């Protein structure tokens, strides 16, 4: 068996015992990538030389007995994470060829942990999208059915882990961009409490919502990846500097006595039957394992998508203003500096990014600010209050991660609003800054994975992981998708 199929904890044990070297593991992973990339396109860039050099370093550490939980583990980073000396594009033409002169905090943490960075993964341009179809460099494909999307925006990171082109990866989640592709690809994807993982070096989409989090094949691996990435950072003024949760402190404890809230407002129109049945089966299993299931209400949730599609574009309209052809990235020449900027931005940004910049610019502009952006900020407060009320009667909230399983490539590209509505269950946690995780709970009648979302209050990652771990135990780990032959 290829070592690329191992979980991180399995690989880590094999590395520590000497049964496996980081070099062998890395080569297996690189081989898996070379076998599958032509069809699935999970990576923007594979850093063969860098990965092999890091594996060599890791083997020295392992030989010296000074390895940690990620030493020698091949991981992948979404291409919106700044990596010194390694092209970082956000899957956008406007940044094509940009070689950053600095490392973001996550990249630094990975190097400090002696992880092997395999490469940079494909994504929706600037993390705007739910399918990777908005990448300027081609769509990633779902390993369960390559005619379907892997979800997004962190689709490449999800595919790489699902197929074994990395043992773990990191994505960013602004409205569901980790959890939704994890759900569609049958793996574990987690968004931490806002502020736990530094955003320094994460190319911003919507600053007050963006959060880095891990993809893995097991809940235990998710804990290890989060622990390696989380921590206070002086380079990020929104970083959390208080006491950090013991993320994996309650793994294996089961759910007996825990109160699990099912959100009354979720699960209506647009939710597929296959999703509903796997969700209900999981809730029943939790109840069977001793959890108390209660119904709770999040009245503001019906405004969540609208709220999100005002706040995120508003922030992005400013965050993306810096791409102007002056200091880095694409420049399309013009007679004047203004013309140069206009052309550069028009040619450099794809249609979805353009649409959101326009949307945010409008929502912030004079005369509309209070009706749109101001009102959205107040609804954010209501969302947080609703969560607080709900958590008074339960420990975690659960829902399907996405109302649907993986959809066909091209199916929703002509209807941005339909695409936006697929984030309906994931967005509330971003608005509140709360942690949430998607765990695979089996497949629908088409054989496509279904994800189960567990939401928890701020800094309550421990109980969130406790429930996720129980779900994984009760429903069984997802198998890996069958390796497809490389398409010609």
């Amino acid at each position, binding site marked *: 068996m290829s070592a690329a199929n191992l979980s991180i904890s399995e690989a880590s044990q094999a590395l520590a015992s000497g049964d496996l070297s980081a070099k062998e593991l890395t080569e297996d992973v690189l081989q898996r990538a070379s076998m599958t990339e032509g069809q699935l396109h999970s990576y923007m860039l594979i850093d063969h030389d860098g990965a092999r050099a890091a594996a060599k370093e890791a083997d020295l550490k392992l030989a010296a007995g000074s390895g940690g939980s990620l030493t020698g583990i091949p991981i992948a980073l979404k291409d919106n994470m700044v990596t010194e000396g390694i092209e970082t594009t956000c899957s956008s033409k406007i940044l094509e060829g940009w070689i950053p002169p600095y490392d973001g905090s996550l990249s630094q943490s990975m190097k400090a942990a002696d992880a092997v960075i395999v490469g940079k993964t494909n994504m929706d341009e600037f993390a705007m999208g739910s399918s990777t179809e908005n990448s300027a460099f081609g769509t990633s494909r779902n390993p369960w059915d390559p005619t379907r999307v892997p979800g997004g925006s962190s689709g490449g990171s999800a595919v790489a882990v699902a197929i074994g082109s990395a043992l773990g990866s990191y994505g960013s989640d602004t409205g569901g961009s980790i959890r939704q592709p994890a759900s569609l690809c049958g793996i574990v994807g987690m968004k931490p409490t806002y502020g736990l993982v530094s955003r320094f070096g994460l190319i911003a989409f919507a600053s007050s919502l963006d959060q880095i989090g891990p993809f893995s094949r097991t809940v235990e691996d998710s804990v290890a990846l989060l622990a390696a990435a989380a921590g206070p950072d002086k380079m990020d003024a929104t970083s959390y500097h208080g006491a950090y949760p013991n993320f994996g402190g309650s793994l294996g404890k089961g759910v007996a006595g825990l109160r699990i809230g099912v959100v009354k407002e979720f699960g209506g129109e647009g939710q597929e039957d296959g999703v509903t049945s796997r969700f209900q089966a999981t809730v029943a299993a939790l109840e069977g394992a001793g959890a108390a299931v209660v119904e709770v209400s999040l009245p503001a949730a019906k405004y969540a998508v609208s709220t999100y599609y005002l706040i995120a574009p508003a922030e992005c309209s400013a965050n993306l203003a*810096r791409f*102007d052809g002056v200091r880095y990235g694409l420049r399309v020449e013009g007679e004047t500096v203004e013309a140069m900027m206009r052309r550069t931005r028009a040619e450099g940004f794809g249609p979805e990014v353009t649409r959101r910049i326009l949307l945010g610019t409008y929502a912030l502009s004079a005369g509309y600010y209070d009706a749109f952006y101001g009102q959205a900020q107040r609804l954010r407060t209501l969302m947080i209050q609703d969560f607080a009320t709900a958590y008074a009667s339960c420990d975690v909230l659960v829902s399907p991660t996405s109302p649907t399983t993986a959809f066909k490539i091209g199916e929703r590209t002509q209807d941005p609003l339909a695409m936006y509505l697929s984030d309906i269950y994931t967005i509330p946690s971003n608005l509140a800054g709360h942690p949430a995780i998607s765990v695979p709970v089996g497949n629908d009648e088409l054989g496509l994975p279904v994800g189960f979302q567990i939401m928890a209050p701020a800094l309550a990652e421990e109980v969130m992981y406790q429930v996720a771990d129980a779900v994984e135990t009760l429903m069984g780990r997802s198998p890996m998708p069958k390796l497809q032959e490389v398409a010609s």
Partner: protein
Amino acid sequence: MTEWQTVVGIEIHVELATKSKMFCGCAVNFDSPPNTNVCMVCLGMPGALPVPNETALEWITQIGLALNCSITEDTQFARKNYFYADQPKNYQITQAEGPVCVDGFLDIQVEGEESHRVIIERAHMEEDTGKSTHVGSTGRIHSAEETLMDFNRAGTPLVEIVTTPSIKTGPQARAYAQKIRELVMALGVSDVKLEEGSMRFDSNISVNKPGEPLGTKVEVKNMNSFRSLERATDFEIARQIAAIEAGERIVQETRHWDEEKQTSKSMRSKEGSSDYRYFIEPDMVPMVLGAEWVAKAQAALPELPDAQQARYEALGLDQQAASVIVGLESAYSSILEGAIDAGADARLVSNWLTQDVTAWARSEERALDSTPLTGSALAELSAMVSDGKLSATAAKKTLAAVLEGEGSPEEVAVAMDLLQMSDLGAIEAVVDKLIADNPDDFERLVGGDGRVNGFFVGQAMRATGGKADPKIVNQILRDRADQ
């Protein structure tokens, strides 16, 4: 005809002299080669995040307290969105609602007028832009062929102080700006050098008839000295009045002051003006500047110019000299105070400082703190004058040489042979010889003709190369005449 009412508001930008920039660790240094004090944050690179400089916030708090402002307890940064090549992120991090300082005032004094209270609307924290150099065949902006960008200044902490329209005339505008400069200098939080752009001002001007609504506001920029602020403000007031009286309409616009031509020209129409789309900066968290924060800033406040002026006047300086010293760089105050502490004559020393030393510093283009002049050196010089060792003229020569680094006053006076003749016998010999050589004139002196007294003193000074103390010469002459 009814009088016109003039309404002027002023915006002053002051760059803070913190060690590092507002949101990153790059040095604040204006002398560095281009693009050497830059990093991912101040260049607005993808993924970079701002983290606010605590010292800058302490300093703006002090500025606010010095301007009698309230300090906003719950304050935050905002983004001001507009595209400009020397603004790396294409938004400026500034403050919109709830700036750090609000509702203050500053009393100013225009010579010959009553004291006038300028109302401060707000003072807020923001970041500066980079600098563009327009390169073209004629060197003028509008014929530039390309623009070179240096981002060393980008992200320098900037405090913007905004008045209400509570100023009425050019001289008031000038007095206000000068007083702000003195205040900030006293706080020691900025170089406030107009020529280097670390202090800049814009004027907003309108005119109206009493009882009628305010007129259309025009913004005047590019005033690089206090004098040009005064002139440009008065020019704009006169221009608007003349225009309205000629039946023209004032348009809302920005005008550029041309100091050389003493006129202003329209830059761009503000109609349909920029929509800055302010919103709270999501990359930073709110700042809570509570009572403890304010108390700490209050305790750190140095003596402010009004108090300093009063103290100098109490020490014996005249009002004019005291005011000049308060307005000069702090080295002047410390040298003055050092000299007075060491027993110098306050008036004498303050006159040297405000006249001779400032003139010398201006012509040599030197900062006082880069010279060897100290308070004790000035005290020594003062003592030499009062002991009759130096004439007033010789004292000035000595001072110049001390400033040049040629030695202590005593050393310099000796080396330059400036000491007055202290040997009474030698001066008597000179005077006696003059009397002997000019017996007719001496007779007239004895006869009470005071006019010849000056002749003898002048001759005695000439004969001694100016080193005889004229008081002593006079004394000897009187003695001889009485004999």
